[in-house]
């Protein structure tokens, strides 16, 4: 249930209420879960990559205030969310996705509706694009260390350079025990890798080192976290930290690398085709309100928007929310990048 970027994440869906699954067949895009909240006459259709459990506290609080609302919440993978809005023109009132590039393409291509000025005015520049797209959470992309990842007496790496040294110095320890995204399969993994390649020279060396250690490639953060927690893997690079338990009980350690740590923005927009755009924007406004953000942070464990975090932690780099992301989606650029990635990873 934690597959945020799962292209075909049926196998990850466990414990999710499969309500009205038959209805999914009527749609042109694949859904993973859906649920109705409330029974009021005002219907709000929300399409999201975020699992129901994460959003439940916010939705419940919203319904207490708006008893006249029925909130229809549909979960789909980021690719399917994009397809639903851009190709099917499905009439959702609010679309929340962690795939920044796909959300940007929807907004850039004119398929998103301007959001109310009151809602956008409070948002910092890096957390919004025009009046079309706005961030609802900020999630660092981290290095995740398992219980026995480090040889005794060795400190945890704080930069990519130190990580490379650690892996090089202990090849036997880490062989087959390093986890990272497969950019060819995961949109998020591709986004992170492409950003890495632009931000750091060390990235390609790291790729080579990971290749030499037979790193295992994953489709989703959840899979990496599970394997590391259970000791099958020692270390995960570019894991979405927000999904890691992050408590000492599992012995997992979240490391924000100090040379830079990418920060993913989960973004929301109201599609042009929305049936009740005002209602969608109103729910979004609640999500962005202090109360909504607190519920997201505490209730759901997703990091709330926090502009100060970037001041306090200069290593945090929000992924730029602008049409530069479109370059990420260019198929030829993508093909070239993946070829290079493969060449670095798979040595003769």
């Amino acid at each position: 249930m934690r597959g945020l970027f799962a292209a075909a994440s049926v196998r990850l869906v466990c414990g999710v209420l499969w309500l009205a699954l038959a209805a999914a067949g009527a749609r042109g895009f694949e859904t993973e879960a859906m649920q109705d909240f409330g029974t009021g006459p005002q219907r709000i259709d929300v399409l999201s990559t975020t699992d129901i459990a994460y959003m439940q506290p916010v939705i419940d609080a919203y319904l207490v205030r708006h008893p006249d609302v029925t909130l229809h919440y549909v979960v789909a993978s980021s690719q399917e969310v994009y397809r639903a809005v851009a190709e099917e023109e499905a009439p959702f009132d609010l679309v929340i996705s962690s795939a920044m590039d796909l959300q940007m393409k929807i907004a850039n291509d004119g398929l998103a509706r301007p959001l109310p000025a009151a809602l956008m005015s409070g948002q910092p520049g890096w957390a919004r694009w025009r009046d079309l797209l706005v961030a609802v959470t900020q999630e660092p992309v981290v290095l995740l260390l398992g219980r026995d990842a480090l040889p005794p007496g060795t400190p945890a790496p704080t930069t990519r350079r130190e990580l490379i040294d650690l892996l090089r110095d202990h090849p036997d320890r880490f062989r087959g025990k390093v986890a990272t995204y497969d950019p060819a399969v995961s949109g998020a993994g591709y986004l992170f890798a492409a950003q890495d390649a632009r931000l750091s020279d060390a990235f390609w060396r790291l790729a080579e080192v990971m290749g030499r250690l037979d790193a295992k490639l994953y489709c989703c953060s959840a899979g990496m976290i599970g394997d590391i927690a259970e000791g099958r893997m020692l270390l995960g690079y570019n894991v979405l930290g927000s999904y890691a338990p992050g408590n000492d009980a599992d012995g997992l350690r979240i490391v924000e690398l100090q040379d830079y740590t990418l920060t993913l923005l989960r973004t929301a927009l109201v599609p042009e085709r929305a049936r009740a755009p005002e209602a969608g924007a109103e729910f979004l406004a609640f999500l962005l309100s202090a109360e909504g953000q607190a519920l997201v942070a505490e209730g759901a464990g997703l990091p709330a928007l926090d502009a100060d975090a970037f001041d306090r932690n200069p290593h945090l780099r929000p992924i730029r929310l602008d049409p530069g992301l479109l370059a990420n989606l260019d198929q030829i650029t993508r093909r070239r990048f993946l070829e290079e990635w493969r060449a670095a990873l798979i040595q003769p």
Partner: protein
Amino acid sequence: MLLQLLLLAACLSVGLYAAVRLGADRASEATFDAVLGAAAGSLAEEVRVAEGGITVDLPPATFSMLSAMGEERIFYRVDVDGAPVTGYADLPLPEQLPTALAPSFYDANYRDTDVRIAAILRSIRIDGRAAPLLVLLAETRQGQGAIAARLGNRAAVLGLAIFLAAIPFSLYFARSFLSPIDRLAEAVGRRGARDLRPLRHPAPSELQPFVTALNSFIARLRGTLSQTETFLAEAAHHIRTPLTVMRNEAELALRQSGEEETRARLRGLIRAADESARSASQLLDHATVLYRAEQADWAEMDLAKLVRDLVERFRPAAEMRDISVRLEVRGTLPTRADPVLVEAALRNIIDNAVKYSAPDGLVEVMAEAVAGEARVTVMDRGRGLAGVVDQGLKRRFRRGANVSDVPGSGLGLTIVEEAAQAMGGSFAIGPREGGGTCAVFSLPLL
């Protein structure tokens, strides 16, 4: 004045807005085009040929940079050999292909928005031959429009503020420039009618020519007026004196002559001289009335006293014709008038009454205050007007049909009417009940 200035300010601000807006539009379009062209160029450089075919490494920074200028939406398209390779395959092509040297820019509507497109043409080598590479990079221009609008608005607001601020100043300056003129006008207006001294009022140097011109005009006027006065006095003298001499000579001759035929001739001569003297004096009276009426040199005077004195002067001449004059005046009748004019008027009225009365007739003169007017009524039991309307008799040289036996010029009533009108009074003449004539001359009481 204020309204005109406000209107002017508004017009100028609108003009300023339009001018700045246009200028800003042009300037910012050139700027934006330069950036867009450079971005398209760097995009074209990232298109290369590798073993597997064409590769593109889109630089995200290029898109970020474009968007950063105004949060614009970005579209691109890469064509090789005339076929779309990547990007938005339906982005509209330019009507004319750009040259290899310079990008071309054009406006188009894409996905329901207006976009500005830069097109770049290069050639790349594929399979040993050169193939055309066409790169299109499009952006929305909301930022540019916003910048131009903002500049225009700012200019308009600034212009309006400046113009509005200028209004009180211009009003103040206009007033302080005009105030000496106002003061001069007031000084001239306050003067008495006969006050023809030159202006000695302090005036700013800009007004000096005006004051000089005005003073020279006043001097000329003064000269003309005094010339007229002198002329009238001299003319009266020059006409009356020889007539008097002639009359005296004729009377002397009459007394010495015993021949009846000669005596009759001399009597005719004396009558003609009298007539001429009267005509001449009436002509002069008329000229004097016109002149003095123009002067409007009024002073406080007692009409009752004037009537009394005048009647006393007439009495001897009337009694010579056995006509008695009865005067009925009580108290005083203060008016504001020119005594010379009043006297000329009343003299002509009484003269007529005496002249057209039969011997033994009675002329009654009454002066009284009636309904805010000082009214002088002169009545006789003479031959009357024979039904002629008084308006006609008041015309110049007009005489009644029943007076051919009596000499006269026909100017008397004209003088009376003109004098009455000049001083704000009135004059009427009509038949008297029971025979005779009744003439009424009135002036406003003080």
